[in-house]
């Protein structure tokens, strides 16, 4: 069997994985990057709007503290505050670094990186390239990897001496030795041959879980692999009940339903209207945000040119609020003909400006829906976009509870709390990708011996099983049933009974998934690949549904019809998922969220905090504030 030795193995080649691998290689570690697709195709390419970083290029009042506050508010204060702090502080350096590696962001008049408005961000903050920022980021990181390979070639005569990409290669199991990570087991998609990585540190950067839903903006790779690999290796997942339904996905034609319509449309002036022509978002500003958003269309419109004296339009509320509002309008019978609402930029900007600022949206609607967005409104509705939940990690190093296991990006949990702000994902990938790469490197430096690879036989038997069964379930059918179930029963609005029904279905599908059969051989066989991915999708779906059933409140990306309010008691609780190595059953336990550090909590007004936290925490706040005053 093919076998390789590395210091650090990074699973996933999106923004987080590439940044982690670059860091590990820069720290002198022999690094492997394993990805399911070709190099440069990861889901990060689909990110449109930009990377949030408080550089203050457009509004000099911006700084890390404002960004930190916006992030915590967006996540309804459930965020891991240390992660939110590191993210806000380090994002500018990570963006500038990309520029030194060749990225070409759009510019301000004085030649700096331009920044655009986005939902939940107080100031224009998103570094961007039109509406194809993710592509720019992935290409820059890809080209940085190549640059490092060229350096290695100059010294060692081998491009792959220190960093090698294993493309179209899928990891099915993490390998362990005495409780610590010792490697990974994978197969080549192209040949079906197995491959063992012998490595003391693994960084998971596998992205999200959207392919458990029918209507999603996610690509086929988003089958929750890293979430499941971590669970099966004994690590914990947190916040799995929180899934972001992006408010604006395409709704027509049916085959493109769910494909993303960037928030930049609203950031650049686009408005949402119902079938009566009303800008309905003014009716959906929640109490916690009342004083931060415009109350009239005139004020909202003035804000685009004068932010100092006006409040932002409610179209730019955090994504969870906008998604729920669209859902409510459609349910109330005020939707568009094809079951969404209208998103109009045609009456707001000149056609040339739309094409300049939103080129890929213009292209996407023209090619796929015969709609010219410079002349008519788009029809949009919520789509499964991002999971806030993921591997519970140490904020500073990305380390999971299993020694040698690290995670960064969407597969990790905590940073975004119950709802992620647009633009905070691309910067998250860079900040925590780098930290996880550094964390893994330091971990390897501290080892006294290399752990031994074990469990290869079992992993191989599991992987080959669907091909060896003579007959059985069709993996495509099981996948469709899972997607329908999650979409209908654990979607944007949840009820205890429905989530319970979903769990029953998932349980039955897990049984049936043990009996999938894939026809054909091992060479590039998508039916076989899907049969193996199903294990992961089912496991993460079980986590999502179980946690959703337990959390009896509504917050961010978790809305319970039977518990519509937000509860300060629940804010202190994290739901932690774990599973045995065979994945037979997910267990969920409650864990208390640690209190925010004094210097961070005092960045907020008492009035605002009182909407979120318990009386006990308010008392802690008062004490912290008093101490701060005594010091100054």
């Amino acid at each position, binding site marked *: 069997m093919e076998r390789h030795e590395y210091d650090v193995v990074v699973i996933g080649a999106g923004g987080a994985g590439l940044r982690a691998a670059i860091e590990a290689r820069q720290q002198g570690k022999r690094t492997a990057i394993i990805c399911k697709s070709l190099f440069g195709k990861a889901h990060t390419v*689909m990110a449109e709007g930009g990377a949030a970083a408080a550089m203050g290029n457009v509004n000099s009042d911006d700084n890390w503290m404002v960004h930190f506050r916006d992030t915590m508010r967006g996540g309804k204060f459930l965020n891991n505050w240390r992660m939110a702090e590191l993210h806000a502080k380090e994002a500018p350096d990570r963006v500038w670094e990309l520029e030194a590696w060749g990225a070409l962001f759009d510019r301000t008049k004085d030649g700096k990186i331009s920044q655009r408005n986005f939902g939940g961000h107080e100031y224009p903050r998103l570094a961007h390239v039109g509406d194809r920022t993710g592509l720019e980021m992935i290409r820059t990181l890809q*080209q940085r990897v190549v640059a490092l390979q060229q350096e290695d070639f100059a010294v060692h005569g081998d491009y792959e001496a220190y960093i090698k990409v294993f493309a179209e290669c899928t990891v099915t199991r993490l390998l362990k030795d005495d409780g610590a990570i010792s490697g990974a087991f994978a197969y080549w998609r192209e040949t079906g041959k197995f491959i063992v990585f012998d490595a003391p540190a693994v960084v998971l950067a596998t992205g999200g879980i959207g392919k458990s839903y029918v209507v999603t903006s996610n690509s086929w790779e988003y089958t929750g692999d890293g979430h499941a690999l971590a669970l099966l290796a004994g690590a914990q997942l947190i916040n799995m009940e929180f899934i972001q339904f992006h408010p604006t996905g395409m709704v027509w034609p049916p085959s493109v339903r769910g494909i993303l319509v960037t928030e930049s449309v609203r950031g650049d002036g686009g408005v949402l209207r119902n079938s009566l022509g009303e800008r309905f978002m003014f009716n959906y500003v929640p109490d916690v945000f009342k004083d931060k958003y415009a109350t009239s269309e005139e004020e909202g419109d003035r804000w685009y040119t004068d932010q100092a004296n006006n409040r932002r339009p409610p179209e730019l509320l955090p994504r969870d609020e906008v998604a729920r509002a669209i859902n409510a309008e459609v349910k109330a019978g005020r939707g568009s003909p094809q079951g969404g609402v209208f998103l109009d930029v045609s009456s707001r900007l000149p056609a040339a400006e739309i094409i300049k600022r939103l080129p890929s949206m213009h292209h996407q609607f023209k090619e*796929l829906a015969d709609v010219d967005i410079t002349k008519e409104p788009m029809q949009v509705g919520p789509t499964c976009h991002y999971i806030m939940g993921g591997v519970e990690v140490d904020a500073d190093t990305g380390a999971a509870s299993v020694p040698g296991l690290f995670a960064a990006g969407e597969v990790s949990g905590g940073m975004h709390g119950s709802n992620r702000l647009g633009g905070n994902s691309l910067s998250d990938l860079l900040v925590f990708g780098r930290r996880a790469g550094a964390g893994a490197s330091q971990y390897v430096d501290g080892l006294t011996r290399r752990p031994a690879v074990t469990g290869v036989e079992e992993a191989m038997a599991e992987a080959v099983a669907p091909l060896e069964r003579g007959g059985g379930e069709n993996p495509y059918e099981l996948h469709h049933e899972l997607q329908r179930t999650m979409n209908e029963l654990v979607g944007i609005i949840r009820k205890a009974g429905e989530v319970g029904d979903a769990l029953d279905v998932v349980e039955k599908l897990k049984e049936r998934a043990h009996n999938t059969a894939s026809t054909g051989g091992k060479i590039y066989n*998508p039916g076989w690949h899907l049969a193996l991915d199903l294990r992961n999708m089912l496991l993460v779906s079980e986590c999502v549904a179980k946690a959703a059933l337990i959390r009896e409140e509504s917050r961010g990306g978790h809305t319970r019809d039977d518990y519509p309010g937000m509860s300060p008691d629940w804010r202190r609780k994290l739901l932690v998922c774990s599973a045995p190595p065979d994945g037979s059953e997910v267990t969920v336990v409650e864990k208390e969220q640690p209190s925010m550090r004094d210097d961070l909590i005092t960045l907020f007004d008492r009035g605002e905090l009182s909407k979120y936290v318990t009386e006990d925490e308010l008392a802690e706040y008062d004490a912290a504030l008093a101490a701060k005053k005594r010091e100054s």
Partner: protein
Amino acid sequence: MGYKAKFRVWRGEGGDGKLEDFTVEVNEGEVVLDVIHRLQATQAPDLAVRWNCKAGKCGSCSMEINGKPRLGCMTRMSTFEEADTITVTPMRTFPVIKDLVCDVSFNYQKAREIPSFTPPADVRPGEYRMQQIDVERSQEFRKCIECFMCNNVCHVIRDHEENKTNFAGPRFLMRIAELDMHPYDVADRKDAAQEEHGLGYCNITKCCTEVCPEHIKITDNALIPMKERVVDRKYDPLVWLGNKIFRR
């Protein structure tokens, strides 16, 4: 609204294979990739096809549809008549692994042979100052989604395996132009473009520009200007001819 379409799809591994006929359901608004997926789910579970985003942003599902290089996800079924037989084959320039999936490693090798972005040593991150108008030229080329259809269609290598060693293809000649036009790149790329990466092989037939799903003007904006930059040092009859014909 739905109808049954006739599809002929290349099936096979390595060098061997043949076109197989299928009759498959098509619904309103669907694209060719949707139909390929329906074939997988209902008739040919091991049919190999690459795809990721299904939104024209990743450049994975490059294939030849009725002989034309296209992204499967951006080719709407409504562009065909219901009676048409739609023939889907893998890209011709690269070796077939299985069905519609090719070995595109040629492209990754070429990418590695082009010296990376080389900024001046004394500019630190955060200090870069560039005007929008100066970044726009290279930005156009950075829209490239690496579908490799330009390299697939380029006649220099499409039917001339022997040219592959000495020719980077439109994608990577454009990458050289992109770096050469980057306001902060200090490397001299002109001689290498001509001598190592085969810029001179390009005789500006614009096939690459025609198939580009991002509508990048590869020939006019990248390859011809690059030829002009080279011509300062070398005489290239095609640049002379190009200037006559296209009057830039």
